[in-house]
């Protein structure tokens, strides 16, 4: 186990995490391409993961890293599933515009 993180260094990591999250969130809200939107959600995922590790290092335990491994595993599975869904949608109608897929609106 290396030295625990100082509060100053933690702030940098959290800032990075927040920036990544906001970029992802704004991308999710503004872009219409389904794949880009999906990538943006991945970005938000990673932002959360960075925050996890940073906190883990700050507290000097491994729980943050354990969480990271779970997040990566699930993200991999979810990416496979989400991309498969996108491919299925594209086969039904050759468009990736999220606005065009709104059959279930009330």
């Amino acid at each position, binding site marked *: 186990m290396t030295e625990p993180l100082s509060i100053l260094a933690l702030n940098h990591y959290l800032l990075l995490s927040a920036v990544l999250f906001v970029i992802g*969130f704004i991308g999710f*809200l503004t872009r219409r391409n389904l794949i880009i939107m999906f990538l943006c959600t991945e970005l938000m995922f990673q932002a959360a993961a960075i925050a996890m590790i940073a906190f883990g290092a700050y507290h000097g335990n491994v729980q943050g890293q354990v969480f990271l491994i779970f997040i990566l595993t699930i993200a991999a599975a979810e990416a496979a599933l989400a991309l498969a869904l996108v491919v299925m949608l594209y086969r039904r109608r050759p468009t990736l515009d*999220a606005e065009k897929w*709104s059959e279930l*609106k*009330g």
Partner: protein
Amino acid sequence: MISAAGAQLVLLSSLASASDAAAVRLNVPVEWIVFAPLLAALLCGILALRTGDARARYSGAICVAGIGLAFLTSVAIAASVGYGFAHETVFEWIRFDRLRADFAFFLDPLTSIMLLVVTGIGTLVAVYASEYMRGDRGYARFFAFVSLFIVAMTTLVLADNLILMYLGWEGVGLCSYLLIGFYYEKPAAVAAAKKAFIVNRIGDLGFALGICLTYLQFGSVEFAVIFEQVEALRTSGAEIPTAIEAIPFLLMLGAFGKSAQLPLYVWLPDAMEGPTPVSALIHAATMVTAGVYLIARTLPLFLLSEYALPTVAWVGCLTAVFAATIGMAQYDIKRIFAYSTVSQLGYMFMGLGVLSSVGATFHLFTHAFFKAALFLGCGAVMHGFAGQLDLRRLSGLGRVPGWQIVTGSMLVACLALAGFPLTSGFFSKDMILAEAFVTAGPGYRAIGWIGLLTAGLTAYYTFRVFFRVFLGPVHFTAGEEHHGGHGHHFHPHAPGAAINVVLIVLGAGAIFAGWAGVGGGHHGWFGSMVHHSTAAYEAPAGAAHGGFFSNPHQWMMLASSVVGLLGIGVAAYLHLYNRAAAERLRRSILPVAVLAGHKWCVDEGYDLLVRRPLRFIGHVCYSLGDTLIINGLVALGGAVPRLIGAAVRPMQNGRLQGYGLGMAGGLATVIIIVWVML
């Protein structure tokens, strides 16, 4: 005042308790009378459920075996009971508080007679039907119902209490319903079945109320206990409570429904939609006589009210003449005999009403033979001529090869129904009519004259059928059930061995059954049987018996012979020798003939007076209660979630980004709230 007129009920004091020493000990398993047909019903029922099972063709034999075994047991029972009585508990059924209604049998000579009629005619009809129904898709189903009917009918007859009797009563009603609607693809059959069931409900309501009132007044529904108390009440000379006097009227209503009397007779003619063996067994020989049996069985109760038996007599008398007039104007031979059944049942009630319980039950006994023969003869004609029943389209069948046995048995049965001297119907009808002139009661003499008139009408319409269908020039048209190709000449197929044998047996019964009521003592063997049952009376003191014209029975035999022969003579002239004259006569009284042909528009009257008002009430209840209140409440229950949905629905606008923003906004709100609260 009948009860004061000297008619004394001979109640065997020993009837009061079944465990009494005078009771006959039975060494025959009496329960087999019920259980053998029940077993047959179950077997046939299983075969009926297994569609396509080739063994279904044995169901006729199973049914014959089941009912035949019941008949043999009944013969043994009748021999064993003799003029005594017996009581047999099969199992305890209903017991709470003071109410005791066991599955128990009460046997006296009256029971024996009914058992012999029900199982005897039942066996013959089952044999007949095993040929008649061959090739029908519902062959096994038919025999399951017939066996079940015998189960219910024997239960009704054997019951030692009113509740078990009611069980059998409803059972026969159910089987009647099932068998009238046997051809359930025919709308007319379904309508007739429903009509029979609903009209019987009216009567059965009366019966049920009568049972309740009997229990409330006597504290028991067992015949032995009730009769003991009735006897005590009569001998005490105390004032009889009105509630007790109401009992016979309620029971009477049930009897009028089941036995098709005015005003509830309308279901029986329509019941002819069922297969003909059913018409013979249920709607002529046995089930419809259940009402007569009910009154004969509970006769002590009817003696408690001075108006009960006169009511029965008048209703029976009016029904007899009314149904006879309708029967004269019908063209469907099965319907003619249906109205004849209604009319003859009227005679039986007349007999009960004028205190001739022997005459009534004797007529029941002989009627079972000749009416079953008539219906089965009709069935043979219907079977052979592809469902043709119109007497204008059938003529001279007696000379068609292969139809001699049918013609012979029909002739004999028609003679018996017409009261031709020395046939069975002659003796039994005379017994009732003579008693009407002897017994003192309100208008009983008039009842006798009306009965005599009806005897003439009966002879006329009976021989109208016989002369039209079986004599005269040979010509016939096939009915609608003929499936041959066009241009194919129709050949009637003559009945086979089973049908012929049954017709011979019933024909013989139609002649010789009458001799059971002739001979020494009170009306021979039959009279002795009834006199030793609970339906017995001592003859009124001072009744005229002696000398030719002062003896009402001999006088009546002469009078009714003349009337009967007159009716036959008129029928012979109009329908055999000079059929054109019949047509002229009909045209000269056309309005009457048409009205009688339309059954005096009774059905239409009931429609106007009963059905339409009820439908109107139903309509009001439906539109007010159902549509407005109940449906309104349900609609309100549905409207609330719908409104909420309408308010919330716009949120689901189908924009992925919008949902993302919503999620973020929601999260931010939660965070801010938590922030502020902390």
